[in-house]
């Protein structure tokens, strides 16, 4: 079996600050791979390098065997990598349905002229998009919010809408940046079920940045712990949590 995604000696520098240095890992198809670490460990930075928002100063990322680090974000999205954001980046002044339909954007095959005239091809594509989006709405139980404006929705629902928008892309790989941040216990529980379903029922591989160790141990197949841009430990959730270097990074050294 070949890895779906590999990070090879990834490094990035902002001015004099080495945010990530020499991080390598492989993500296998159909696994949930979690990145953990204290604030500023470089987890989100790694996400941004995978999705093309940052260009690594050294090293590269491959997806399905192809190097992708030189591609702009929209082309990486077209390859089948979807992501969510730490602080929810939805299209505020649009309905939930419209947000999810934007998720179908990379599967469009009509051009602006066909759209301007709303040709039969555009209409057919719209109906097809809608069917896919409705499947996502049903999967995430968003029926009630379908026609609501995002700007008026509670935080927990927005989080689910953002997940839905990423799923509407029918991605091969899903990057979840702190899926449980800002959610209450019950909502976090739901998020855990969905991540399991995404992996088992939809067959999507997930890379997740997460602080809630309960959620991490529940859904992750493997966990990579980072600190100050460097790898600390890689293994199952239990192994990583008991690893001495990880304990030290979170709780401080014994001699302090």
């Amino acid at each position: 079996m070949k890895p779906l995604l590999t990070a090879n000696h990834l490094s990035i520098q902002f001015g004099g600050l080495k945010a990530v240095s020499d991080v390598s890992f492989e993500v296998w198809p159909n696994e949930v791979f979690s990145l953990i670490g204290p604030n500023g460990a470089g987890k989100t930075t790694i996400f941004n390098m995978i999705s093309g928002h940052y260009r690594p100063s050294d090293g590269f990322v491959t997806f399905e065997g192809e190097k992708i680090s030189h591609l702009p974000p929209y082309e990486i999205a077209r390859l089948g990598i979807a992501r969510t954001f730490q602080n929810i980046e939805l299209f505020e002044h649009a309905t939930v349905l419209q947000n999810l339909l934007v998720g179908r954007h990379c599967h469009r095959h009509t051009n602006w002229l066909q759209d301007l005239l709303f040709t039969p091809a555009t209409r057919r594509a719209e109906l097809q998009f809608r069917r896919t989006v409705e499947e996502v709405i049903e999967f995430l139980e968003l029926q009630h919010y379908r026609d609501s404006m995002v700007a008026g929705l509670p935080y927990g629902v927005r989080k689910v809408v953002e997940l839905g928008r990423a799923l509407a892309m029918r991605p091969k790989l899903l990057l979840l940046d702190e899926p449980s941040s800002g959610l209450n216990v019950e909502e976090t529980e739901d998020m855990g079920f969905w991540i399991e379903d995404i992996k088992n029922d939809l067959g999507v591989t997930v890379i997740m940045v997460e602080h809630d160790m309960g959620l991490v141990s529940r859904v992750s197949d493997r966990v990579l712990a980072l600190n100050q841009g460097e790898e600390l430990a890689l293994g199952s959730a239990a192994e990583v949590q008991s690893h001495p270097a990880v304990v030290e990074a979170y709780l401080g050294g014994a001699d302090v």
Partner: protein
Amino acid sequence: MRFLFKTDYQRDIRLFKHGGQMFWYSALALALIAAPWLLSSYWVSQFIFIWIYAIVSVGLMLLVGFTGQVSIGHAAFLAMGAYTEGYLYSLGWPFALSLTFAALIAGITGIIVGLPALRVKGMYLAIATLAFGFIVEEGVTRADGITGGNSGMMVGSLQVFGLPIDSEQRMYYLCLFILALVVLGVMNLLRSPTGRAFVAIRDSEISAQSMGINLAYYKTTAFALSAAITGIAGALYAHKLRFLSPEQFTFLQSIELLIILVVGGIGSIYGAIFGAAFWIVVQQLIVIAKDWLPPAIGQQTGLQPTIFGLILIAFILFEPMGLYGRWLKIRTYFQLFPFYRKGMFRRQKSYMKSERLK
């Protein structure tokens, strides 16, 4: 209250969501078709200006209201459309062709003006478009071989497919027809992937990219389409005025166009049309009021800009959603009667957005 029972996805795609809408829009269309016979030619002429301004506003709304890119140089596109039409028409080109060319040339210029939008945002983009406006204004003055420079350009009387547009009534129908086509086109865009990409760029560029939207492509497309629509309006404007000179397309005109959008309501096609109508009507009311006011006020040169300034401030303070917002509130009041609550349209608290990648 009306409940929509939807049985298939087509219902969400349709332009008219229910029979009631269909009825009222048909009634409106009939009224507009009958209007030139009922109104004096003075008001028919004012309606023509409303239609032309509405076309420009819809074009500008596509860019400012739906794609979130500011332009304070739109009068330049209006000028390009007007002068292209005037020049090509004087060469004997048929109207259908010269109109297409006016749109095309404005559209291509729009792509060029859109290029800075790929790098700069907000205030800086506004300055770039402002500079473009000045360049065109200056260019029109200098290129007197084509435009007639400061002495102006006469535009011949219009013929469409052999039919002379020699009365205000005929011009009214032509402009109304083209406005209808433009509105239909923009509505089509907005219910299809292209329009959703525009809105996505307006609301969050970073996640638009992550959804596979090529920012450069869609921003230039928005600029090009907006400019082309404005060019079409420019061509009609040329035939309406019959005389073009550089001082009709100044920076102030670009600002006026933006005021129309704010007064009408940013982010809706209704807003663009309401704004245009309001603009023309208030202008006429000021002209009428001038005769009634004491000369010390009525004859002041700055009267009109002052009034518009006050109106703009009043809208920003009391009705940021513009005329369209007011209309929505009135409509909701009657639809929900007697359950309308005062806070229904209060702006929701928005959550902190990520600043990390900007």
